[in-house]
């Protein structure tokens, strides 16, 4: 069936089987392979994208269910060569090693900071509890989200 999903502000249309998962739709059609396809069982969080600004697991969402909704992927974070503070935080605090979980971690963290600009370490850990990292460990990821929160707070003060 014909499906139109808005991905990073652009309407993407394709004739798909209803069983097509959102993660495959995103990776195949516009070719946005930043969203990683991981465990396929909604456990690992590598496939997290934002649906109407809320993080969802795209391996457990049908593409057809997303028609009429706004999807944001990790590719939307960087604008004109400028990294999102969350991305910069991961860079500064060495919060990635192999990088497989990173797109999901970034989108989950972005959604957290949009809702709660000054989260505690516990709130960060709770927010990313649906995302699994198997190499960096979580310490630097939490530090990276803190870095982003503090960076955004100082930017707001300057503005």
């Amino acid at each position, binding site marked *: 069936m014909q499906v139109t999903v808005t991905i990073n502000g652009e309407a993407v249309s394709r004739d798909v*089987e209803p069983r097509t998962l959102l993660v495959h739709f995103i990776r195949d059609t516009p070719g946005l392979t930043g969203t990683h396809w991981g465990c396929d069982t909604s*456990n690992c969080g590598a496939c997290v994208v934002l649906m109407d600004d809320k993080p*969802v*697991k795209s391996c*457990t969402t049908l593409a057809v269910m997303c028609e009429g909704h706004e999807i944001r992927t990790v590719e939307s974070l960087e604008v004109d060569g400028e990294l999102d503070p969350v991305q910069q935080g991961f860079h500064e605090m060495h919060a990635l090693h192999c990088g497989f979980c990173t797109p999901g971690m970034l989108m989950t963290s972005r959604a957290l900071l949009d809702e709660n600009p000054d989260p505690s370490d516990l709130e960060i850990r709770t927010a990313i509890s*649906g995302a699994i990292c198997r190499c960096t460990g979580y310490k630097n990821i939490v530090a990276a989200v803190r870095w982003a929160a503090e960076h955004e707070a100082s930017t707001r003060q300057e503005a």
Partner: protein
Amino acid sequence: MQTPGPFEYERATSVEGAIASLQRLGPDARIIAGGHSLLPMMKLRLANPEHLIDINDLTELAYIREEGPEILIGAMTRHVDLLESELLARHFPVFRDAEQVIADPVVRNRGTIGGSLCQADAAEDLSAVCSAAKANVVIRNAEGERVVAMGDFHVGPFMTAVSDGEILTEVRLPVRPGGGSAHEKVERRAGDFAIAAASACVWLDGDTIADAGIALSAVGPTTIDVTRAEEVLRGKVPSEELFVQAGEIAAEDCMPMSDGRGPADYKRHLAGVLTKRALRRAAARALHQEA
């Protein structure tokens, strides 16, 4: 690669339309809400519906409100909204206890109470919560609607009182004076299904327990209502000894199986301990002795 088997998809624009579709398409049609229980089952071919009727647009089924002596929860209410509801936290803190440990925050953005109950996975927490709270559910079909007590809702593993051509639309929680409630769960890791979990509600009349509800997750083929322990509690003054006794009954009456989450005797032990702890916290809350 895990992908569900092929199916036809349609979006419902009204509850009546969803029921009409269910009737027209027959027993191979299923409702899909958040999809976080159904899609994993479909990937594993444990569920193979030929038609999915998506009810995510039915926002009229997403609400938590007080009406007379009841709290009404629409079937499309998502876990995140159950977690954040102050109304629920005030009257039934058991919901917030459970929602903090149901899956993870990202899954909770999608999963719904109606989907959780209709999936009727014995390891799922909300079924125990609603059973302990003595909830009633509203099931609608083409002829009208009927109200079913949670005690009659589970008819077998993954089987409920919702028949072909029917849809669960609402959960009703009777609010009674002197109530306190709590949910206790042990899991292997954050976001996992329970190794065992216990929900408890008590309603006090002065010093004594007027009524109690106890239900267990993950320790039997269905959610287990520990009615024998509820009987023991009624008319008694809450005490540690009483909660220990109720826990012993829960451990006796559950039917756990050994699996990857642990051996049966360990789960049985947990059922007893968690029942005791849930009752202790439920009673403390009823007595306003817990912040």
